[in-house]
């Protein structure tokens, strides 16, 4: 186990965080501290408890997981690869063995027997986790292993996760849509009494869309500005543009990345040029409709402000009402 795991990583802190309503939405400030990266780092360092991060699709969960994983690169030895942080993206998972096989595949093992029993697959997985010096497992899209109802299959999955966490002594971070919360709340028969996966987990956290008109939002946009070769935007000079980008993407990483991916590479000199380019990009990336937020003829700066206020109110409501 490395002792020098960084608590914060500037790359992540520049644009990712967990929104605590009382800290961010109402005050609309951002203190540069990334609660998400700290949450993951603490779990990685302490190794006592596992964690659950949820968020709607496109909010940036997978990107966060991949970014964190990249901080601990794999090293290739003659005999094996050392994988300090193992990232697993679950596909459709129908049985506990299937779940274990997907983790085994992430370790580089593609020799599988579909008739393998869960306990032999688990033993094999534990052996390889040890061989490959895995310190943390991040399992993304964990809702994929949950059926629609909390029946026997859901319980089997929860029990399989519990077996993995208990036997491997390696923390696991589960990531998924808000539906994934079900997995740690499920009660199942463990030993003589009813158990829950939640006793092995820290309190779950939810990743929320970034609020508008705050430093976090500017950091987030500038991350993509730089990624796609454009200059930084500032609140003073590009307020209207930042608002329009917010309306187009709802503060979601997924949509922001999609929008920027359609931007034509050019040296945009002013807001008007940016807005024209974004208008075209929006048509291709997000929606080809008349209510394009970059259509400056249809939607002026005042209307944009009003739309932003509406979106902020809705975001506050989601925090207030869960």
């Amino acid at each position: 186990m490395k002792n020098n795991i960084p608590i914060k990583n500037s790359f992540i802190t520049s644009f990712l965080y967990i929104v605590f309503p009382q800290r961010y939405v109402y005050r609309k400030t951002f203190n540069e501290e990334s609660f998400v990266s700290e949450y993951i780092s603490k779990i990685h360092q302490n190794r006592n408890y596992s964690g659950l991060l949820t968020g709607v699709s496109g909010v940036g969960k997978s990107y966060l997981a991949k970014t964190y994983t990249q901080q601990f690169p794999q090293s290739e030895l003659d005999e094996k690869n050392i994988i300090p942080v193992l990232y697993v993206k679950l596909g459709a998972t129908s049985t506990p063995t299937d779940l274990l096989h997907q983790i085994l595949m992430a370790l580089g093992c593609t020799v599988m027997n579909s008739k393998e029993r869960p306990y032999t697959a688990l033993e094999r997985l534990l052996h390889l986790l040890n061989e490959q010096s895995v310190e943390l497992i991040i399992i993304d899209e964990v809702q994929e292993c949950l059926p629609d109802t909390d029946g026997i299959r859901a319980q089997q999955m929860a029990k399989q996760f519990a077996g993995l966490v208990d036997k491997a002594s390696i923390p696991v971070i589960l990531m998924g849509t808000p539906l994934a919360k079900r997995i740690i709340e499920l009660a199942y028969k463990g030993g003589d009494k009813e158990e829950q996966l939640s006793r092995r987990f820290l309190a779950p956290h939810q990743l929320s869309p970034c609020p508008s008109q705050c430093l976090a939002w500017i950091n987030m946009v500038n991350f993509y500005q730089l990624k796609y070769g454009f200059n930084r935007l500032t609140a003073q000079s590009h307020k209207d543009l930042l608002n329009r980008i917010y309306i187009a993407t709802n503060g979601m990483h997924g949509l922001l990345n999609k929008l920027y991916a359609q931007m034509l590479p050019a040296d945009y000199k002013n807001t008007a040029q940016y807005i024209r380019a974004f208008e075209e990009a929006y048509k291709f990336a997000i929606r080809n409709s008349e209510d394009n937020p970059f259509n400056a003829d249809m939607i002026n700066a005042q209307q944009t402000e009003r739309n932003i206020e509406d979106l902020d109110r809705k975001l506050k409501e989601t925090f207030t009402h869960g």
Partner: protein
Amino acid sequence: MARLPIRVRPFVGESQAGYILRLAMRNGFMKPEDIVNKKVFNLAIRNNLKKADINNISSLI
């Protein structure tokens, strides 16, 4: 293509069956038949693997 994450090499003078056993165990399998079929392992016991079988086993690592 089937791959194993622990890439052990044969020792000088190691029997074919011994190598397959070691390869399977190091990769967490309980028995050699989990990585090669029984017929191939029986040939390995007699140190009589065909070239194609050797290539197949080599491609696992």
